[in-house]
């Protein structure tokens, strides 16, 4: 396990010093802030546009909170692949993967170290968004369970996206291709939920929804914590990381 922390430490310090990572965090924060502001303004406009006795029918939770965190989850689709694209692709391109392979470090440790560091760093993306719950509490509309579910969902989704981004990066030594592959893999998990919405067959629809990351996220943001969702997330991360390890091992095939 020691090697995992050594590798994670190196990866974190590299991300910390990367201007691109901080630029992405800056743009992401601005985008989320702008979205929050627009949702609030839209909500106030809607409230003012309808008679007072009907105002209670417009839910602040659904119109602002859930839509905000749904949008943040959507933004991650574009921001995670650029943060994961270089993880293994660059090591292969530069030949530095030989340094890791020549040390008493297993492929599992390499993948775990990179995953944990990148997941930790991508969680930094979410730190500026903590301002929104503070504003919501201050405005007197707190729903602790929902907000906790939103952040738990975002953290777990981030872990899934980092895991498939890492898998994409293991498949090529070209960072641009790795980013595109990562985007496509994440997009695929979204597509499953969209296909499920257009399917009449109940069993097929439910299976597709269960396989989709967004389906589980939607459950979490409602404040519902279920074993099924946690099992899904763990299985998703485990399978993606195992596939990355297999790709590294394929040098011996």
């Amino acid at each position, binding site marked *: 396990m*020691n*090697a995992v922390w*050594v*590798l994670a430490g*190196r990866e974190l310090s*590299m991300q910390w*010093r990367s201007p691109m990572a901080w630029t992405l965090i800056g743009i992401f924060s601005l985008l989320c802030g702008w979205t929050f502001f627009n949702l609030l303004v839209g909500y106030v406009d809607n409230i003012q546009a309808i008679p007072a006795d009907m105002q209670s029918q417009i839910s602040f939770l659904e119109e602002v909170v859930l839509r905000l965190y749904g949008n943040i989850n959507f933004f991650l689709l574009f921001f995670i692949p650029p943060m994961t694209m270089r993880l293994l692709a660059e090591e292969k391109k*530069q*030949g*530095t*993967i*030989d*340094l*890791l*392979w*020549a*040390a*008493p*470090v297993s492929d599992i440790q390499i993948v775990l170290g990179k995953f944990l560091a990148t997941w930790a760093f991508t969680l930094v993306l979410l730190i500026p968004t903590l301002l929104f719950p503070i504003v919501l509490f201050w405005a007197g509309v707190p729903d602790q369970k929902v907000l906790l579910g939103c952040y738990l969902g975002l953290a777990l989704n981030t872990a899934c996206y980092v895991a498939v981004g890492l898998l994409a990066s293991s498949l090529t030594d070209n960072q641009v291709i790795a980013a595109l592959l990562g985007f496509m893999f994440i997009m695929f998990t979204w597509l499953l939920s969209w296909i499920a919405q257009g399917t009449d067959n109940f069993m097929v629809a439910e299976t597709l929804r269960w396989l989709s990351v967004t389906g589980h996220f939607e459950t979490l943001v409602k404040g519902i914590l279920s074993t099924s969702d946690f099992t899904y997330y763990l299985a998703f991360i485990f399978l993606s990381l195992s596939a990355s390890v297999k790709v590294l091992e394929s*040098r*011996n095939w």
Partner: protein
Amino acid sequence: MLGYSNHSWAIEAKSLRKDYPGLVAVKELNFQVPQGVIHGFLGPNGAGKSTTIRMMSGLLRPSSGNVLMCGVDPVLSPNEVKSLVGLLPENPPLYRDMTVKEFLFFTARLHQVKNPEQAFERVVDMVKIQHVAHRLIGNLSKGYRQRVGIAQALIHDPRLVILDEPTAGLDPESVVEIRGLIKSLKASKTVLFSSHLLHEVEEVCDSITIISQGELLAHGTLAEVRERFSGKNILDVNLVSLPSVAADALKNLPYISAIETTADQHHFRLHLNTQEDVRPELVRAMVKLNLDVRGLQMTGSQLEQVFLAVTKHKEHP
């Protein structure tokens, strides 16, 4: 077989083979390298040197056969082999965004070195990079980057060091310094050294292995390989003249197999069928034959000639 009495091999390849789809990169290699020598690993481009080196270092698994590093199989005990072997691949694996110190501390921790500070001090002193320890690797010259690459290979104090083309692309001054460094390693380690520069191999190595198209072509001490593939030594003789009677008399000497004339009428090449130094005896014989000797030089067979002969024979049998 190498002419060493020490049979505790640093490297022992037994029917080592690596197959890729549609290509046999390494074919049944069998050779041994004793402890405490500098061993040259030669072959033309695409000969299978890097693949063999990667199998020795535990980076790649053989398709069949095995290679024991200090008696340990990299497939069965990869971590043990990785702590015994220090590797400098052809392209030094360096993180350019790190300083030399950060990088060497990182590699020391990867190798679970108990005292990284002490290991760092030892290797920077050994490869003479103290004054660049706080500089970014990306800003160093190629020569210094190569030294940092060697330092990372030595950080865990391995018993066996594998250097793949360590002087490729360096300026002459750096080449001389790195050769000196490699020679100094011999005191405490076994070194496997791959190079395209044959005069360098002759200068640095005690023994060599030549492979081509994945097959072993020659293996042994430099003298053994030269003897095996040339069979003879050559003496360049400069005489005022060589009358036919005297030439016949020389041909009858037991250690001379042939006399070759050259474009220069005073220059003759005597092919010897012995590795012994027969010059004093020959001079006495020539004086007896009233030949005026102006010069006598043992040329032997240069490694380059042996290498070309061996690899050409392989490519065009």
